C-alpha cells in the first residue's frame, strides 16, 4: 500500500536519481559507468515513480510513441556515429573527434570533438545515445509488466 509520505517523497527523489543518472552518462568517458549505467539509473528513477504512483497517476508519463522515438533515435545515432567513421576513414566506429592515425581533415575532427579538456571524440556521444536507449528500454519492460493486468483482462473478456 502506498502511503502519503511515499507519495510526497518519491517524485522529488526520482528527479534527483534522474539527475544523478545523467551525471553518470556525462562522466562515462573518464569514470567507471557510462551510457548503460546512467541510463539504468535514470530508468530506476522512472520505475520508482511507476511503482509508487501506478501507471495511471505517475507524474512521469512515457507514451508508446515517445518510447519508440527515443529508442530509434538512440539506435540510429549509434549507427550514424559508426558509419561516419566508416565513410570518412574506412573504419567503422573510428573515433573522428580524436583521429589517432591523423587521416581525417581537421574540420571533421572539430565537428566530432567533445568540448572538454580530454577531447574524447565520439565516446561521450556514444554514451549519450546508449543512455537514451537504455533508459527507455528498461522503463518499457516495467511499463509492459504493469499493463499486463489490463491485457489479461482484455484477453479473458474476449
Amino acid at each position, binding site marked *: 500500500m502506498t502511503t502519503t509520505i511515499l*507519495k510526497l517523497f518519491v*517524485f*522529488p527523489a526520482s*528527479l*534527483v536519481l*534522474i*539527475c*544523478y543518472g*545523467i*551525471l553518470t*552518462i*556525462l*562522466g562515462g568517458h*573518464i*569514470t567507471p559507468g557510462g551510457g548503460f549505467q546512467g541510463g539504468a539509473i*535514470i530508468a530506476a528513477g*522512472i520505475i520508482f515513480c511507476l511503482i509508487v*504512483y501506478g501507471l*495511471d*497517476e*505517475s*507524474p*512521469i*508519463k*512515457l507514451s508508446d510513441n*515517445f518510447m519508440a522515438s*527515443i529508442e530509434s533515435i538512440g539506435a540510429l545515432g549509434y549507427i550514424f556515429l559508426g558509419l561516419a567513421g566508416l565513410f570518412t576513414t574506412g573504419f567503422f566506429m573510428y573515433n573522428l573527434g580524436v583521429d589517432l592515425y591523423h587521416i581525417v581533415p581537421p574540420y571533421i575532427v572539430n565537428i566530432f570533438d*567533445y*568540448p*572538454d*579538456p580530454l577531447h574524447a571524440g565520439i565516446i*561521450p556521444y556514444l554514451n*549519450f545515445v546508449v*543512455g*537514451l536507449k537504455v*533508459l527507455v528500454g528498461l522503463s518499457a519492460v516495467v511499463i509492459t509488466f504493469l499493463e499486463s493486468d489490463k491485457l489479461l483482462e482484455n484477453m479473458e473478456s474476449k
Partner: protein
Amino acid sequence: MVYIGPLILGFIIGFIIGTRIKPSIGSKLNFPASVYVILAIVIVIIAYQQGPFPWYTDSVFANGLISALAGIIVGKLTFGRG
C-alpha cells in the same frame, strides 16, 4: 572557462525527460513550483559537495548535474504542462 560539452548533453537529456513530466487528469497528486525550488537547492548542494565531476577544474560545482535539472525544469515548463 566552463566546458560546454557536459552542459549541453546534460541539458538535452534533462529536457527530454522533463517534457514527459505531466499532471495526471483526475488525480489528487499535485507538485507545485515549490517542489522544484527545493529540488534546485538540494541539487546545488549535491553539485557543490560532488565538486567538478569528473575530474574537471572549471568550476566548484558538478555542472552536468545542474544543467540536467535545468533541462528537466525547462522541459517541464515548455512541453510538460499537460
